[in-house]
């Protein structure tokens, strides 16, 4: 501990010196300029699409929309809401993601906590059994046939069950348990007659809130963002997650976009505007929440990089 504080002091001292000696120079301006340009590439595409999605068709067709909307209208969004299929998928995807995350956390804790105990007999064998699938998978077709035999194809469960146990997440959680739960604390609880479950619920889990938050976000964002298994295993439209819905609506290189909203939606917007609105509809929730999630993610990356 002492060493660490001394080290940080040193760094502070160094940066103080640099602050005092080095004035704002051209090199600073150049570096900040580079960063601003890169940030622009991350933001401007979304501002452009947002502007397009609430602009009047005529301006869009005249190619006059850049970063600001012209002739503001929310027609595209109201047709998305009238059609209802994207809204439905959004709700459905939220439910699937929540169930997936809850079950994922359960299986992750159930694997990581026992394996974090060095005294556990058979620990190496269990660790091997639970890690091996990360390095060698059976592949698409054998998995497909397996899910077929398990009657999982074209059910929501095929999007949940096969992936709730994740060796990668388990490893991160195990590492955290090993390095952050003092053994002495556990030993004294043991001497007081506490059982493993009691130690887990009263000591280990309350001490591990940061990693629990991090891993649940890994699960949630991972499930929310991927769509390949929808494409492989799901046929029924109602059972497809929103990412795959969006993929089917817009991911096509052709100029003339056909966008599939029902007649009831009373579409008056051009495909381009509608497409922009659909993209924004799916993207906005992520853009709104990620600034709050990123610090947990950074933590997970750091632990994953060290490993035990």
């Amino acid at each position, binding site marked *: 501990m002492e060493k660490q504080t001394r*080290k940080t002091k040193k760094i*502070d*001292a*160094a940066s103080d*010196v*640099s602050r005092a*000696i*080095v004035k704002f120079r051209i*090199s*600073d301006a150049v570096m900040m300029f*580079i*960063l601003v340009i*890169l*940030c622009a*590439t*991350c933001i401007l595409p979304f501002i*452009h*699409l947002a502007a397009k999605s609430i602009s009047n068709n005529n301006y869009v067709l005249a*190619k006059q*929309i850049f970063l600001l909307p012209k002739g503001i209208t929310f027609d595209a969004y109201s047709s998305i809401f009238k059609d209802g299929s994207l809204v439905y998928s959004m709700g459905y995807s939220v439910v699937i993601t929540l169930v997936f995350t809850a079950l994922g956390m*359960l299986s992750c804790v*159930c*694997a990581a*906590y*026992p*394996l974090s*105990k060095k*005294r*556990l*007999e058979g620990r190496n064998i269990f660790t091997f059994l*639970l890690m*091996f*699938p990360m*390095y*060698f*998978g059976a592949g698409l*077709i*054998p998995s*497909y046939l*397996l899910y077929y035999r*398990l009657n999982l194809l074209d059910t929501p469960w095929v999007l949940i069950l096969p992936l*709730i*146990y994740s060796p990668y997440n388990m490893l991160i959680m195990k590492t955290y348990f090993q390095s952050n739960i003092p053994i002495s604390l556990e030993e004294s609880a043991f001497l007081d007659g506490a059982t*493993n479950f009691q130690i887990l619920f009263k000591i280990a889990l309350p001490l591990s809130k940061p990693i629990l938050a991090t891993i649940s976000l890994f699960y949630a964002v991972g499930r929310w*963002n991927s*769509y*390949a298994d929808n494409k492989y295993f799901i046929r029924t439209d109602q059972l497809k997650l929103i990412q*795959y819905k*969006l993929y089917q609506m*817009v*991911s096509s*290189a052709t*100029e003339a976009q056909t966008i599939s909203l029902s007649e009831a939606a009373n579409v008056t917007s051009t495909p381009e505007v509608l497409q922009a609105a659909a993209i924004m509809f*799916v993207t906005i929730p*992520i853009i709104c929440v990620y600034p709050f999630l*990123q610090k947990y993610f*950074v933590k997970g*990356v*750091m632990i994953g990089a060290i*490993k035990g």
Partner: protein
Amino acid sequence: MENKGTKYKFKDRMKIAVKRDWQLYIMLLLPLLLVFIFNYAAYPGLRMVFMDYKPAKGYDGSEWVGFETFQKIFKDVDFRRSLRNSIVFNLLDLLVSFPVPIVLALILNEIRFPRFKKVTQTILYLPHFLSWVIIGSVAYAIFRPNSGVVNIVLQNMGLIDQGIPFLTEKWHWAVSYLLINVWQGMGWGTIIYLAAITSVDGELYEAAMIDGAGRWKRMWHITLPGIKGTIVTLLIMNLGRVMGSNFERLDVFGNTQVREFQYQLAIYIYEKGLGGGRFSMSTAVGLFQSLVGLMLVLLADKTAKKLGEDGLI
């Protein structure tokens, strides 16, 4: 002699272990059950690579053909093309995507306005949180040859006469495909390097400054050598992954005009298998890919450890 002793102890040890830790073993049942049902139960299915598997006949009815499937895939032009594309594009990915986060981390480290730095970092992390579907649909929307905003702006500025087919002509596609990956990973990739930089001894900078070393010299002679270990480890790890292919990334950027380059192993496996019903061939390619991939990862791990870095396994 000693063997007998340990054997005797083994029984006792088991008894103690079960008595003390039975609750832990019960917990382990859930993940074990999951991997056995969803991972290990799929492994026997791999025997179809030695069969001429027909979905209608199943495993029992299909004919055993030995190594014929492997001979078939190595003669298959589609497979060769997908293998070539996978390796070439993965190496190119490494070449263009790997250095960017290092340079960005060095730049971020030099920024002396904490607010500016924090906001920049947050914005640069954004693409990491977006799905390939969103990235793909945004890219198609803004890069379209006639109505995409990028081409419109370039035309308005008089730089080009005709729209550039960023995603619909194979050479342009190759560049876009690689650069979009750089864009997606650049911010997030800095995290590990920035962490490594904070552990570089501050005294070194002080000493260098007293000796009159400027900013670039300090970057080159102190910061970079300080994070060399991290760079080497990550490079080796990434080299271990040159056989991989990301289905979603390829799929969202796929279209008929760029098939020649976009046709990589993940696409082959999907199209031959679920699309074309050639289950044995698809599975054989998948097996080939994961075995070579596994070997490369193990090799990478060994190399990293030999160089005195932390391994990955």
